[in-house]
């Protein structure tokens, strides 16, 4: 009894320890990863949708993954739930390794494949269902150990293979491989029967292929099935599977050796721990791109409208790629300081404020945010739609954006459709219900500070978006809604970044003195822009109320250009 209690305590302690370990690792490698993942998909509670999902091979794993993913919108929920999943994976693997090797020495090996899985979780193209599928596989593998008779072993193996393929998808391949390894290790003539489960799996794959469930074997039987099918999966997708096979093989091989000397046993354990640490550090550098994690962090701040946090974080980082710069500049624009701080980070060209679309969901979602800030609702809606489509149509964040844009346009019928969809979710139903009051209610939309302001950005003179240049669209927005100052900040910045001083001057002439650019001192970079084209025209400097500070800085820049590296003049002179 005491022994049993001790074992339970050991398991509990190991479980808690592992849970804390995985939680800590997820927290340190990228705590915004799960918040970002949740944006891609949320579970729609609709019988037909769920039925369609479950009817696919791997449907149950997908459903469980979706059930978990929907909670990732809450801070830390993603880390906690995934750490729990990883703990279960580690404990189950350890238990199986012990059963196979009959020695405790192999237990640290169980952490290798799970660590490799951690790297995958930072890849947005990896499906969370792949991890759930592995858990289901290990559960069925553990169940195999409880079967006593050999004949039942084989029957179980066949049934479990079919069941696993139906419920969890390609992971059934790994299951059959591990069973075959075990059978080979305990070699008897009947071991050859363990070739039957892989053959059964091939048959099921063939039927799936014929039924049109996929176009390739690799999506049906290999880990590629848990990776965005439209992309070629990176080799890291194979790493956890290979490691699972490898550690089980090592466990079987370990039976051939008996380590009696305590020192030797200690050395083996130490070797595993050191190896694991080295593997994790090397893998983190190799497979987790810290820039992606920053991008996810920026993205999450932008989603929540926490512009101050985004700006502070941006200030602390080298903003050395366009995606970072775009997010940082949206934050500056939303805080009304884009024209004061734009050149404080190194700018490349106009792509520093709006990057070129590349049809990927990440960039499309970013562009939707930028255009929404600009007040260009048509393009914001376009990119939100395209990003949502690429994410599988159930991205809660983009559905929310589509609700907003359609309400702004007065397209109430389709807004109602998206609201209904969000009402069928767990975490967005209240948001959706709150937005119902805007349907077919122009007065409510116009009175809303956000929707009303953006609706006023819709200009009457229709044209094709960007056909006359984005700048022309922005001018129309300003004519339609002069109080939408963000648009003017973007417009002026766009001209400065494209080094188009004549049009910058024209913009000032048009909008100076309007609500979008009230009389008084201009934003700092706009003052610098004025100095760049009117340094020798005192009346213009007076008209635009260029401050003494800016004039002095300009003089200093002329004497020593390196003194003004955060200025428009420096950009105009030195940026390529």
């Amino acid at each position, binding site marked *: 009894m005491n022994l049993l209690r001790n074992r339970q305590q050991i398991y509990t302690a190991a479980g808690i320890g592992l849970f804390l370990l995985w939680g800590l690792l997820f927290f340190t490698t990228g705590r915004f990863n799960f918040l970002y993942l949740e944006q891609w998909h949320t579970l729609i509670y609709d019988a037909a949708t769920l039925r369609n999902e479950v009817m696919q091979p791997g449907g149950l794993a997908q459903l469980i993954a979706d059930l978990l993913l929907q909670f990732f919108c809450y801070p830390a929920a993603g880390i906690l739930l995934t750490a729990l999943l990883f703990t279960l994976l580690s404990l189950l693997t350890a238990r199986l390794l012990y059963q196979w090797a009959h020695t405790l020495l192999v237990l640290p090996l169980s952490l290798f494949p799970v660590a490799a899985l951690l790297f995958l979780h930072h890849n947005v193209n990896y499906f969370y269902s792949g991890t759930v599928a592995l858990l289901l596989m290990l559960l069925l593998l553990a169940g195999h150990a409880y079967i006593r008779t050999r004949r039942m072993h084989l029957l179980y193996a066949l049934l479990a293979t079919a069941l696993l393929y139906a419920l969890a998808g390609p992971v059934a391949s790994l299951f059959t491989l591990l069973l075959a390894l075990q059978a080979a290790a305990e070699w008897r003539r009947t071991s050859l029967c363990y070739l039957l489960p892989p053959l059964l799996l091939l048959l099921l794959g063939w039927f799936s292929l014929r039924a049109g469930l996929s176009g390739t074997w690799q999506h049906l039987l290999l880990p590629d099935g848990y990776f965005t099918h439209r992309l070629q999966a990176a080799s890291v997708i194979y790493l956890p599977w290979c490691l699972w096979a490898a550690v089980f093989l090592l466990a079987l091989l370990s039976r051939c050796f008996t380590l009696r000397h305590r020192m030797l046993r200690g050395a083996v354990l130490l070797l595993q721990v050191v190896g694991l640490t080295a593997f994790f550090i090397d893998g983190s550098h190799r497979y987790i791109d810290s820039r992606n994690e920053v991008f996810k962090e920026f993205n999450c701040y932008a989603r929540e409208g926490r512009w101050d946090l985004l700006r502070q974080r941006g200030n602390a980082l080298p903003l050395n790629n366009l995606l970072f710069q775009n997010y940082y500049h949206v934050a500056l624009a939303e805080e009304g300081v884009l024209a004061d701080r734009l050149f404080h980070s190194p700018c490349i060209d106009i792509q520093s404020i709006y990057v070129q679309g590349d049809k990927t969901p990440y960039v499309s979602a970013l562009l939707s945010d930028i255009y929404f800030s600009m007040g260009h609702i048509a393009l914001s809606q376009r990119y939100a*739609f*395209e990003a949502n489509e690429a994410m599988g149509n159930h991205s809660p964040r983009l559905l929310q954006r589509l609700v907003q844009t359609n309400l702004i346009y007065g397209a109430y019928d389709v807004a109602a459709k998206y609201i209904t969809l969000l009402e069928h979710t767990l975490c967005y139903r209240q948001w959706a219900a709150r937005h119902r009051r805007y349907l077919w209610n122009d007065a409510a939309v116009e009175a809303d500070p956000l929707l009303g302001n953006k609706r006023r950005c819709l200009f009457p003179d229709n044209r094709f978006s960007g056909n006359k240049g984005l700048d022309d669209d922005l001018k129309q927005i300003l004519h339609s809604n002069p109080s939408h100052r963000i648009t003017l900040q973007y417009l002026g910045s766009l001209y400065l970044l494209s080094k188009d001083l004549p049009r910058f001057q024209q913009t000032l002439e048009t909008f100076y003195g309007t609500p979008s650019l009230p009389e008084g001192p201009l934003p700092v970079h706009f003052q610098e822009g004025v100095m760049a084209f009117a340094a020798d025209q005192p009346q213009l400097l007076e008209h635009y109320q260029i401050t003494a500070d800016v004039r002095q800085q300009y003089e200093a820049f002329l004497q020593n250009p390196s003194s003004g590296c955060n200025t428009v003049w420096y950009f105009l002179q030195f940026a390529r």
Partner: protein
Amino acid sequence: MKHRFYTWAVCVCLGLTACQSRIEVAHTLSCPPPLCPDYTEITLPPNIAPLHFCLPDSCQATELRAHFTAGAEEWEATGNHGEVFLPAKKWRRMLQGASTVTVRLLARIDGEWTAYAPFSLYVANEQVDSHLAYRLIEPGYETWNEMGIYQRCLENYEEKAILTNRQTGYGCMNCHSFCKQDPDQMLFHLRLDYGGTYLIDHGNIEKLNTKTPQTLSALVYPSWHPSGRYVAFSVNSTKQMFHTTDRNRIEVMDFASDVVVYDVEQHTILKSSLLSTPEAFETFPTFSPDGRTLYFCSADSVSMPGNYNRVHYSLCSIGFDPDSRNFANRIDTLYNVHREGGSVSFPRVSPDGRFLMFTRSHYGNFSIWHREADLYLADLTNGSIRPLDSLNSHEVESYHSWSSNGRWVVFSSRRMDGLYTRPYIAYIDEEGNTGKPFVLPQERSDYYTMLMKSYNIPEFITAPVTVKGHAITQIAKQSPGIDLSCIEK
């Protein structure tokens, strides 16, 4: 003891049923119920799947009950999950036994029963073709994700994929077309990976490389010759642009286009100088049922995209001799936009050759993005043209096709939400009179709300397509495709 328990259980159930059927109506309304979807006063084919309908949430009905009366027979359906339908067997028996079914809907609102005014379902004598083929795709801008060509049995709710782009590397697939609603003679295009036109003739699959040096582009909008030997196509140089403030979101326009005819047996494209003039944009060809006339749309070519809203397509025709493969040397204009206004797209002739249905919008040819687009019917015997008011709505009506017996049309409409296209079926009699259309019935009344894809190019077929998607995929991946030649006629 056990026996007694079962007896009691049966009695209790019967008692409950009896109680349920006794309803005291507190309010009687003079208006028909606001059904979702709207199935009131529609004309149905006798072989259509049961209709599922409900009341909108705004009615706050907690329970529904519908009484169906067909001749001397009566059926009652109770609300299941807030929606009403008759089981398939009863439904079929009801439709086959009557020409008119009267439905009286009762709704329990605030604990009291309200009776709506009865409405009728009119049952036509003529059946509709058993299947409908369509593409499911998001009403997207420039990108796409998953799409596929599907077939749906109209007599039940079974939907099967003919081919999805999961099987073909996620490329675009489009423009599926059948010869006289025959599922054994079809074609469609794949773009990007495995690009080509796939022509399926009774199980034989051909992959065609349809871009030739003499034609503008690969083959685009198809229409089969009734003999199955030819297919008329347009070749188009198309671009898509996005409105900022217009009530239509997107504009798709041709910068150039021609019409050609493809000879299936000779693998040859037949080109006529009359159908590929630089002065005109020719598109949307369709053959008459006798195969001797080719209808198409034609507009004066203008500089694009600046004049996108000044492109108006007339409805034209040209003679075609299938034996000699020659075109006539004269083009007739059936609908002259310079006189009548608007712009014509998707001409489709009825199987008896009497009527031609087309879509009319204010300008351009991509009417699915034109909210003003409506269906019109031309009587080819006397040249009269009229709008099909009972089919049209305040939203888009665009693509349409005829059933094999000519008594039913299916058309795409965005009347539900203004964006997602849904297939509507309508009865049309020998004189061109139409019944009120109904949306393709689904197993759940909120099916279309939850569906995030549009129904694109709904086409009736007389039976299911039997060729396997896997077989098409094999050809797509393994065959280099047949290069076509082009002959000027």
